[in-house]
């Protein structure tokens, strides 16, 4: 909570935590984790996972109970205070340090409903006590719902105590830190504990116990010094009370504070809300400015599809298409005598095992045969690698660097499938060579007609020659001008056919270039599709995750 918010809250006179809003924030955190789990390093998310789990458990348990822990150094008087508050000798007090080794619990009110809570916290059944007896009358009624814990110490040579305290401090709703005149300035108390609770000032109470050992003026001096230290720890404004377990009168303030806590039934929510603040602050480094889904811009995709096109052999296929066009055009429009020879030469497209038929929609599911395009060379592979990196780098540019590894991995996640996908894309692309242009047929027919004309002329001439040889009366060949018609037919047919073929050459070449360009365009389209599906889409998925995580974290941070 920022200072401004705090002031606002104070002015509104309302620092209650709304349970529904808390649940919404926790849900958002859960969403955040679900989205980011595959992408962010585990280490960054451990605290959040722990919190989600713990909050879920705590909210499912009794909210009518408030778990308050007495924590502090050995000998500060936790057990003495515990007993004094309970007005019973429940937890052993001793001169041997450390005395308490396991947590003791005292429940105000019936034990049964609190039992599940204590099971979860992990207080042994024989260490649980109840503070309710008919003898008390209404004396203890104000504390009904309080579950008071006496914790072990955290600064003695018994390391196990400290581990137990660390575990328990994560689970309780409120902490009363018990310090004494000798130890209130200890490093371990402030650095390892109080400072870690700076986001939890609303569930923190500090008591200077054994105040009976100080004169009243010294008590004030020490309390002031203690407050200064607390301020340095970031715990501004937490209550710091002087208490004594030996003088019943000096416990009233603490009792009142506990009664207030119990009455409000807020500590559990405040605790979780504070935990959420801490976690949200940690996670804030993983989220930065918004990243658009189309962060991977056109130029980057173009560069990628250029590299992929080269490695998929698109220029070679385009060239082969142009070759095939030329080959087929000549085969169908060339001089019929030459055509036969043409047909003996292989079709350039077929040589690459590329089908020329239009892909049949009904056969879409059919396996696509591999082409015989050459494997990409080392330089082409490098180019693909470089442009895939560029895609990841482009996507990573605006967002925090923790995401970079995920984007890198995503960009490469389908790299292994890429060669096959490219090959299929090339094989399935309609190169526009399935239909013969109409004019090929017309010209082909014309060529046939011309050839037939020449043949007819030739036949005629041969017939005339045979007639002459056989001494039969010669035909009277009609003449066109000076030239006899059969000769004209023969020579004209041949000449016009050859001329036609020659004249059509540039047109065929032009058509071939166009066919090549068209094929290249379609192939590029297909390759770009592959680039989007195999490289850009996984990257987008991560960016999408980032956007969702960003949205979720905004909710987590809202208060």
């Amino acid at each position: 909570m920022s200072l401004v918010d705090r002031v606002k809250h104070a002015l509104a006179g309302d620092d209650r935590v709304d349970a529904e809003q808390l649940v919404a924030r926790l849900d958002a955190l859960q969403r955040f984790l679900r989205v980011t789990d595959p992408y962010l390093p585990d280490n960054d998310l451990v605290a959040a996972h722990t919190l989600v789990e713990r909050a879920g458990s705590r909210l499912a348990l009794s909210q009518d109970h408030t778990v308050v822990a007495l924590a502090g150094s050995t000998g500060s008087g936790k057990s003495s205070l515990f007993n004094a508050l309970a007005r019973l000798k429940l937890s052993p007090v001793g001169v041997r340090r450390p005395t308490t080794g396991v947590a003791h619990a005292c429940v105000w009110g019936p034990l049964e409903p609190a039992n599940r809570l204590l099971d979860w916290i992990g207080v042994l059944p024989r260490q649980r006590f109840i503070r309710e007896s008919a003898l008390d009358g209404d004396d203890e009624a104000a504390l009904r719902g309080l579950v008071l814990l006496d914790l072990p110490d955290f600064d003695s040579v018994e390391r196990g105590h400290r581990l137990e305290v660390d575990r328990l401090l994560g689970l309780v709703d409120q902490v009363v830190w018990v310090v004494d005149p000798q130890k209130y300035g200890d490093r371990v108390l402030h650095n390892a504990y109080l400072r870690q609770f700076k986001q939890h000032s609303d569930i923190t109470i500090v008591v200077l116990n054994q105040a009976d050992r100080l004169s009243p003026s010294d008590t004030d001096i020490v309390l002031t010094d203690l407050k200064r230290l607390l301020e340095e720890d970031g715990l501004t404004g937490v209550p710091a009370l002087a208490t004594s377990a030996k003088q019943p009168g000096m416990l009233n303030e603490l009792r009142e504070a506990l009664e207030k806590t119990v009455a409000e039934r807020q500590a559990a929510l405040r605790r979780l809300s504070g935990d959420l603040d801490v976690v949200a602050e940690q996670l804030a480094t993983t989220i930065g400015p918004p990243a658009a889904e189309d962060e991977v811009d056109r130029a980057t995709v173009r560069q990628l599809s250029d590299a992929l096109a080269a490695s998929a052999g698109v220029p070679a296929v385009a060239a082969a298409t142009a070759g095939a066009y030329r080959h087929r055009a000549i085969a169908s429009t060339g001089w019929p005598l030459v055509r036969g020879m043409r047909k003996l030469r292989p079709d350039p497209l077929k040589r690459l095992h590329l089908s020329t038929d239009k892909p049949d929609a009904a056969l879409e599911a059919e396996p696509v045969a591999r082409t015989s395009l050459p494997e990409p060379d080392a330089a082409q592979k490098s180019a693909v690698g470089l442009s895939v990196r560029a895609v990841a780098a482009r996507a990573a540019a605006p967002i925090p660097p923790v995401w970079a590894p995920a984007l890198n991995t995503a960009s490469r996640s389908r790299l292994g499938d890429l060669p096959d996908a490219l090959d299929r894309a090339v094989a399935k692309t309609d190169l526009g060579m399935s239909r013969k242009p109409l004019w090929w047929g017309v010209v082909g027919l014309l060529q046939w007609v011309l050839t037939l004309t020449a043949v007819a002329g030739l036949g005629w001439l041969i017939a005339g020659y045979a007639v002459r040889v056989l001494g039969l009366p010669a035909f009277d060949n009609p003449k066109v001008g000076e030239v006899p018609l059969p000769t004209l037919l023969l020579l004209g047919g041949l000449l016009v056919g050859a001329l036609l073929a020659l004249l059509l050459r540039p047109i065929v070449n032009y058509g071939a270039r166009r066919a090549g360009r068209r094929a290249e365009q379609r192939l590029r389209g297909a390759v770009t599709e592959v680039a989007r599906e195999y490289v850009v889409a996984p990257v987008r998925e991560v960016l999408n995750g980032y956007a969702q995580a960003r949205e979720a974290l905004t909710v987590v941070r809202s208060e």
Partner: protein
Amino acid sequence: MARSRPQDLAAVLAPDPPVEPPPAVGDLAQALSRLRATIGGTTYPLVMPSAEEAKRIGAALVAQLDDYLLPRLARLDAPLLVVVGGSTGAGKSTLVNSLVRAPVTKAGVLRPTTRSPVLVSHPSDSSWFRNGQLLPGLTRTAESSTDPKTLQLVSAPALGPGLAFLDAPDIDSVVDRNRQLAAQLLAAADLWLFVTTAARYADAVPWELLTTARLRGTVIALVLDRVPADAAGEISAHLAEMLTARDMGGAPIFVLPESVLEGNGLLPEDVTRPLHDWFAQLAADSNARAAVVKQTLDGALAALGPAVAGLAEAADEQATAAKALDERVTAAYRTARRSMENGLQDGRLMRGEVLARWQEFVGTGELLRTLESRVGQLRDKIVSAVTGRPAPGRNLQAALESQLATLLRGVAADAAEQAYAAWQAHPAGTALLEPGLQKPSPDLPQRAERVIRDWQQYVLDLVRSEAGDKRVVARGAAYAVNGVGLTVMIAVFTSTAFIPTGAEVAVGAGTTVAAQKVLEAIFGDQAVRSLATRARTELIKRVNVLLDAEAARFTDRTAAVGLELQPGAALRQAAVEVERSREEVALTGTPS
């Protein structure tokens, strides 16, 4: 009440110490100075689990040598310094005041109260402490101060000569500076008077310090202060048990009951009497004093060996880590080099763009024309001038250049990434990295192109010098050199995998054969092989220079921290010399 009687001292100390200053003390002092210089000169720049600890211990050892070992060795007869140390609020200041029966150091309810050390000595001894050989880093003052860099000197006639008390700051409060200062002061003590209380005696922090004191062989006495009257037996038994368990059973324990302070803030005299008497006896007995001094000194000297061994290990770890980091980089760039060589060798570079351009070059007949006459050259020049299209030869050269440069950039990018990841997996590596290292250097594309262009120039020069006298080249002059040069470059990529396999046969084989044939026709096959080999070797050499420069972006960082090859050896050597001299000097009388 004291559990230990003054006579117990005999049990604590070595029997019958020698009185004469031993002759070899000078050697020992010299060996110590050398050790100090060596420790001071050893650095731990790489971030390693052992480095922080080593830095701390190294600094502490240097401080101990300066503060205590060297000055103490120079004046074995100087007064015995009792450092009163312990937790905050344990009552150290109160105890010092009570022992000298005067409020010489401030006690108070604020934790911590004492911020700078106060040294109390008999007036006759104060000159020794004032001249500043002991703890030379602390400025001597006469007034009380809170500056941790000062040492307040107070004379107390109530204290006998030969003995001085130093009230040290605490070891466990939030004030970090106090803890460092206390450790420094305790390292300079002839005798540790360790003060703890009924509430504190099981705290973890003081026990850590007690353990270091034991390891160092320092003479220790304990004061268990502020003990509730009825608990004295139980607590002191527990404390004695804890001491025995930690191998310090011999240390005397003085148990002081919780008592109401007198008006001037002093403990009642009868409470401190056992302690007072113990010190009075020690002050009076110069032999006992000398024995304490020598035992602590000898212990501190003996502890140098293991401590320095730890430093040597950490220093060697640094060198090993630097080497491991370098090796990771070398491995990454070795892979890069190998993929570059493979890319060049298996003929695959000849399949894409380069092949197309080569076919164009050969197919249009430009190659042969370059070799034939000036007429061809002239015609091509005119053609390209008219059509605005570059001649196929230029296209081929450009294709070669861009393919090679792309390949080079690719392998460099892979290597940078690999080296980065390898360093990231190493604690020392992570600290040396910066994000830019993940990618190859920003000007790599330009430099890669430059390398390839320079190599092409080299090949042309090679052809010129090798074949200058060949008729065909001579006739075509520069123009022919170009054609042959390109042919040689093509041969570089094809000669090992001479016959391409599979599908490429249809596309490529003719080409490479053609290249080979052209060259053989001009030069003869032996010369061709040598030309292609030299061209390839040169290319690989130039590429390696570039990759080495890339690798140096990493290795420069390990080099910059400036580690020697075996930094631990010097430390070990210096420690061995100290240990030898220590045994010769035999401070405690029994050479060990």
